């Protein structure tokens, strides 16, 4: 009897300990996440501070712009082209069923410039540019190059992060314009050449339903996407774990976290900008259907 009671006591204590451990682990996990967000925030503030504290050198800035902007052009153009064509493929049958296939231009171009162009171009760049930045900075961290820079009295954020941040901030919106252009072109070519949509109806409807605000709204979002990609990717690289595994994980996390942040920003910016649109168009949105 005494054995059974003591076993019940031990089991009770074991279960209690297990729950306490799980709660402690959850608490530690949450604290780590909050500290991580704080760390990124401080890193971001330092980056912005260095933009204004000291002018960037051309020999540091221009190679960064070339890597981020020029070398990303082909892949962004291709992404835009195929997005436009896929939109045409997916929308045509539904609109044709309602006899509204001539409005395909409006649907494709509105979706492209407001949403798909900016988000998919930013996602492509998070993968191409973001992962590369994280891997490069991570490698510099594990080979002590960042320590060497600090030990010479140079600030690594000024030399390594600010050029990349400015590159992403200025060039990702520029690349999105390319993605939008190629998407519009791809959507039109597919619609006109393969689906037989009349040129006049395609562009007339497009002009009627897509205006400058829609285009600018999409571009406005990409400034935030660019900043997010640069800051998250550089932060992951700076804080990567030792070894090749650490660098690989930093590159993967740079893309995943950038992408998630792009989605969150897209949602909140979309809500905010839609509200702003009410100010410019108090009569309400034009209806496509």
């Amino acid at each position, binding site marked *: 009897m005494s*054995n*059974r009671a003591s*076993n019940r006591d031990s089991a009770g204590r074991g279960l209690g300990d297990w729950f306490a451990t799980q709660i402690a682990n959850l608490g530690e996990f949450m604290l780590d996440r909050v500290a991580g967000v704080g760390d990124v925030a401080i890193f971001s503030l330092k980056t912005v501070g260095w933009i204004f504290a000291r002018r960037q050198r051309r020999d540091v800035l221009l*190679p960064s712009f070339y890597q981020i902007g020029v070398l990303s052009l082909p892949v962004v153009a291709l992404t835009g082209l195929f997005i436009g064509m896929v939109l045409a493929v997916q929308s045509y049958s539904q609109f044709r069923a309602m006899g509204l296939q001539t409005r395909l231009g409006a649907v494709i171009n509105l979706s492209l410039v407001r949403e798909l162009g900016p988000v998919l171009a930013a996602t492509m760049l998070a993968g191409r540019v973001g992962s590369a930045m994280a891997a490069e900075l991570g*490698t*510099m961290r594990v*080979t*002590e*190059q960042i*320590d*060497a*820079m*600090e*030990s*010479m*009295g*140079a*600030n690594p954020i000024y030399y390594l992060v600010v050029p990349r941040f400015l590159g992403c901030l200025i060039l990702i919106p520029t690349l999105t314009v390319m993605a939008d252009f190629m998407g519009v072109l791809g959507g039109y070519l597919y619609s006109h050449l393969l689906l037989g949509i009349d040129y006049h109806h395609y562009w007339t409807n497009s002009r009627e339903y897509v205006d400058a605000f829609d285009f600018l709204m999409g571009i406005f979002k990409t400034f935030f996407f660019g900043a997010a990609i640069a800051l998250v990717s550089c932060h992951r690289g700076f804080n990567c774990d030792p070894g090749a595994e650490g660098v690989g994980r930093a590159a993967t996390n740079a893309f995943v976290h950038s992408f998630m942040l792009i989605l969150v920003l897209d949602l909140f910016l979309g809500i905010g900008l839609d509200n702003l649109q009410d100010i410019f168009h108090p009569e309400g949105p034009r209806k496509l259907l």
Partner: protein
Amino acid sequence: MPAPAKAIRRDISDPPVIEIQNLSMRFGDHQVLRDISLVLPAGQTLVVIGESGCGKTVLLKAMNGLLRPTLGEVRFEGIPLARMNEHELARIRTRYGFVFQGAALFDSLTIADNIAFPLREHTRLSAAEISDIVESLLGEVGLPQSVATMKPMQLSGGMRKRAGLARALALDPHLILYDEPTTGLDPIMSDVINELILRARSRDGVTSVVVTHDMHTARKVADVILMLYPLSRLPPGEPQVIFQGTPHDLDNCSDPRIRQFIEGQAGTRLSELKDEQARDQAQSTPPTPEHSQHTEDET
């Protein structure tokens, strides 16, 4: 701004270059350094030796503020490093040179640009003046001028180390820190590095701290040798610095731990490592359930 001309002569009558008081360093649950104190006079070469994992590199990085102490204080020329903000620390670091274990040259820059980096960052010298200094430094470390346009990955390990030393000397530092300068090099190249360390020391009596486990380097370049012992194998309360003295005193020391290290004897270390491995495995294996106890309760 530091001038390239060697105008100031430093000697042992100057105040201490480095003062460390009760320094402890902990990373999470893992303590690496415990209660280290030392004073490094100007012009002296201190060599820090010890087994892998005893905290030599951590001590070195604490000396120039790359790592902040968990407890204790590090002063450079009387100034506490922990109280400085980033800008003040950056200014102080122009008086340091640091030669990293892998040289830590910037991959995307040429050797000339690597050496010129601190000069472009901290001086207003013209491109021609910087080029002259780079040429002079390459000659000082025994590198041919042809390497100036090469990238670090095109050089051998020894050449990269020498380029790293040239970069560390660019601002005419008061203190040069060397992290395992001869690791991975052949014996001849190791002695070339030792000679360069001695030559750098003769530059206005610059103070040096060399972290190494190479006893040949330690004996050749040291004025004072400091030996650290890994905390994981040290009883609580015992000092982590188990030796501080001249190379001659080290060779005559009778402490078995020191003798084992300087003679390079494995001794009982292999069996200690196997015991440690077995203990770790036992701790990670979950205990088997007690069937006999349960059966007794049911009856």
